[in-house]
């Protein structure tokens, strides 16, 4: 009964937020509440870390330049302090203010997510990836979580060339699964065909956790490869194994991110709805020594999912007029509501109201 009521009353976004809060709380994550405003300077210094580079800025009454938050992670990093041996595990659901990709205007976006900051180890990465998968499954069963490792990509590229122009061009090609332009870039910069083939294997990789050993067997035994092997073994044994794949075309800014990065997709939504990873570089840039991993879920994108239409706005429309006794109208309406149906009492039928049943009390009315 409670669930049915929640389904009827809450929007999909609200249901998801409640489910996520419950999920993160059960894993021991603490809620993180913050002000809507942040120092403008923080975003100017770290533009590349954010999804967009524009913020709504204004002068506070004391002349200080502030901004409406376009991002949550930066504030969490800035607001914390390093405590060796300890881990800070927090979750949030907050509104952020960014330029919409579609309208190119500022938009209020609800974002949920979590951060694990401290001596992050493989368990923390596994737990974060697990929570990312569980967060997606809280929205729908048909989801995919794609994982990459920036170390693997940077190792592979640096073995081939140290020319920044090549690295930039090749990274772009790998991110777009664009083998033909990668070939052109390799030819232009004198990269051998065997090195091109090795990069192509990374570009085309798309395998389930259980297939990781076979894929990794052809790669040099680097630290990144070993980390992938260990995480893949943990994920292969998880209930989400069939929803997860490794794909090294997923890239990120290496000045901020390192190690594992991941993105989540839901069928019916054209872009990723979840994005996360390890961001030790960002921590260092903000003067923190601790390591960190986390993710954000963009709840505004869930609008694209079809919500079943109940087909009506109210169960019963009661029509009454001045001749009806108000106490009688209230009694009849309350009786309907007590039976579990919604009811509205009006003088006339509104043009756009969709109702299941009409009860006309006007004929029963008597002059008071």
């Amino acid at each position, binding site marked *: 009964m409670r669930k049915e009521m929640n389904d009827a009353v809450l929007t999909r976004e609200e249901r998801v937020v409640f489910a996520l809060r419950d999920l993160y709380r059960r894993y021991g994550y603490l809620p993180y509440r913050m002000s809507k405003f942040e120092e403008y300077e923080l975003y100017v210094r770290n533009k590349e870390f954010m999804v967009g580079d524009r913020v709504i800025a204004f002068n506070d009454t004391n002349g200080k330049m502030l901004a409406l938050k376009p991002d949550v992670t930066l504030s969490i990093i800035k607001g914390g302090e390093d405590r060796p041996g300890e881990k800070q595990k927090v979750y949030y659901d907050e509104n952020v203010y960014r330029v919409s990709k579609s309208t190119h205007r500022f938009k209020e976006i609800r974002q949920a997510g979590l951060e694990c900051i401290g001596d992050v180890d493989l368990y923390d990465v596994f737990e974060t990836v697990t929570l990312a998968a569980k967060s997606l499954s809280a929205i729908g069963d*048909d989801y*995919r979580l*794609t994982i990459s490792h920036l170390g693997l990509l940077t190792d592979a590229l640096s073995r081939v060339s140290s020319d920044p122009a090549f690295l930039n061009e090749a990274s772009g090609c790998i991110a*777009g*699964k*664009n083998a*033909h*332009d990668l070939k052109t870039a390799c030819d232009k910069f004198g990269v051998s065909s065997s090195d091109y083939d090795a990069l192509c294997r990374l570009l085309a990789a*798309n395998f389930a956790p259980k297939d990781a050993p076979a894929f990794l067997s052809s790669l040099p035994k680097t630290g990144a490869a070993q980390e992938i092997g260990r995480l893949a073994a943990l994920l292969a044994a998880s209930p989400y194994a069939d929803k997860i*794949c490794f794909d090294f*075309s997923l890239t990120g800014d290496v000045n901020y991110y390192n190690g594992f990065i991941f993105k989540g*997709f*839901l*069928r019916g*939504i*054209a*872009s*990723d709805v979840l994005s996360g990873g390890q961001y030790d570089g960002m921590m260092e840039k903000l003067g923190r020594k601790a390591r960190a991993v986390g993710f954000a879920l963009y709840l505004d994108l869930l609008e694209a999912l079809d919500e079943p239409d109940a087909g009506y706005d109210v169960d019963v429309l009661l029509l009454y007029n001045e001749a009806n006794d108000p106490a009688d109208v209230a009694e009849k309406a309350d009786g309907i509501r007590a039976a579990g149906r919604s009811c509205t009492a009006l003088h006339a039928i509104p043009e756009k109201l969709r109702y299941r049943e009409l009860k006309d009390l006007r004929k029963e009315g008597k002059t008071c």
Partner: protein
Amino acid sequence: MLNIALPKGRLGETVYDLFERAGFDCPSIREKSRKLIFENEKTGVRFFWVKPSDVPIYVERGAADLGVAGKDIILEYAPDVYELLDLGLGKCRMAVAAKKDFHDENTKTLRVATKFPNIASTYYEGIGRDIDIIKLNGSIELAPILGLSDVIVDIVETGTTLRENDLEVKANILPISARLIANKSSFRFAADEIGAITEKMKELVKTDD
């Protein structure tokens, strides 16, 4: 069922031929009708024609899982999509052209007329040249003739239009051809189907070369 956006026009028809030869045919597309969408349940594909410059939008926004767009359109709009294959069709080049007697002395801001402001800006940024972009939507060749611009940045196929208007190519920017693109989310849910189409088309492109 995979939704595939094809560019309207001669290139689109050549591209459909390639899909057909790869085994992803849809006979109803050959029939004369006013239908907008053509579907073949057996092969699991649904085609629709769209304006060539709209293909990346349909794919990026997920209305199409796959599409075929020119490299010029992809570079200009920079959609967040996978670029899976160079189909080697519709080959041409993006070039800088001007009146035959024009010589850029680099003493003033260069006026550039183009349909491709991003490609033109990136090119001139790369060579450190200060420019003023004049965005036009058609008949670009008119701009230098009437003194609206010093040069144009446009697609050159055979060069006939340039020659007939006393213009010539001053620099080549990049080669252009049609590319098979995929929506990143669709790729996650239909990797096998998209992979099968890409592989079959790749074999055909190799053979045709």
